[in-house]
């Protein structure tokens, strides 16, 4: 049996709506993933420790507060600090993110950014294709 892909769907920071994150979580479940949802208002430390303890393959960070350039790298750094390896995982970001910031986030280690309106099936495809690719690259 192939190992189930585990995905952490995380809401970081102050913004207070999580409809999008919940819809995403359900869709991912129906696509065969094991999905852990964090609920609202998590700190980067909390998300990072959850990612390590739950040994997830994908960390999806959803945020609409505009603080993505500050918060997302923190999540990645804390994962490393807690002994996890972000190079073995996919780090995805969802939210209203300006194009310049997308470039910036990718430099910081984010694998892909999904802006509102992206069909969720695209996210599923991305995970299924990129996760094994990234792992292979990391091994060699």
């Amino acid at each position, binding site marked *: 049996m192939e190992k189930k892909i585990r995905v952490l769907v995380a809401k970081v920071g102050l913004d207070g709506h999580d409809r999008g994150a919940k819809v995403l979580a359900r869709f991912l479940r129906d696509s065969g*993933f*094991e999905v852990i949802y964090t609920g609202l208002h998590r700190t980067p430390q909390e998300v990072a420790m959850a990612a390590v303890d739950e040994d997830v393959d994908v960390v999806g960070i959803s945020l609409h507060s505009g603080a993505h350039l500050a918060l997302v790298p923190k999540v990645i750094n804390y994962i490393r600090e807690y002994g996890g390896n972000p190079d073995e995982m996919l780090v995805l970001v969802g939210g209203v993110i300006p194009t310049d910031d997308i470039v910036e986030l990718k430099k910081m280690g984010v694998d892909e950014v999904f802006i509102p309106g992206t069909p969720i099936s695209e996210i599923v495809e991305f995970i299924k294709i990129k996760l094994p690719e990234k792992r292979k690259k990391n091994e060699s």
Partner: protein
Amino acid sequence: MKVEELVEGLLSGNRRALARAITYVENDYPESKEIMKRIFTKTGKAHIVGLTGFPGVGKSTLVSKLTEEFRKRGKKVGIVAIDPGSPFTGGALLGDRLRLDGMDSRKPLWTDPGIFFRSMSSRGRAGGLAAKTGDVVRLLDAFGFDVILVETVGAGQSEVDIIEVADTSVVVMMPETGDEIQINKAGILEIGDIYVVNKADLGGAEKVERWLKYMLSLDEESVQMLSQMTHADEARVASGEFFERRKGWNPPVVKTVADKGEGIAELADAIEEHFKYMKETGLIEKRRRERMKRELFEIVTDDIIKLVKEKTNYRDVIEKLVRNEIDPYTAAERIVEEVLKSGEKG
């Protein structure tokens, strides 16, 4: 990671190693047997507490508040929370962790090094647990957690598997849990060491409490009669297992308002009291002895079947059985003989 590295890391307090070891065991990787072999002698110290009950009664909320309470009492807490997974898509939404918040926001539970929370999918399995729950609990035990809380799926079906894993089983109910006969059917009255009536802020908690106390006060004969009326798990009731398991212990009924933290200290007291009682009376060894026997026999059975498949021409025997040329009893005897002989040859 190599087995060596994982085991050493796990035993020296490396969370990452623990997390990865759980993944190996949960997915039945080839390394998992070796991991379990190496950590087993380090287990047996933790108090394993199961929480079961219908969906939405407040199990996850109770787990969070209990975790906070045990931390205050200086204990390290490991948590395994199981949610239903679909056998068809393989997917699961593991939503117990999202309740992991205590009453004191200055001490967040998510980043407390004395807490480890792991979500698991039942992957379509019945009985309320994931297949490898027992071994995952052992990994947490070896890591050094004092209390391990296990939240069952809570699908409302018979979830009696928890008694195979937990030292103390906590059954959670709430007012209007459903009709009482249904509750009895689910085996709920048999398995609890402690009963919780959560959501006591809603009306009707006293009624549930009274009913529970009455049911729990009945003698063996009355329970047998009742269980026949309600078609409960008759074999187990008739075997006296119901009474034998709890021997001398009167399950307390604790009222809580989990999301407000009310009744949590009392519940933690009851849980510790039960552990103490079991140790003093030797009940804990008795339960563990039964569990180990069952587990040993399961493993031996698996191993023997593996041998049969490797060492005998069981396929030919099955063909003979199909043609009614041999009876299954004689066939089994011959196969066992053949396995034993293959062992002599080495």
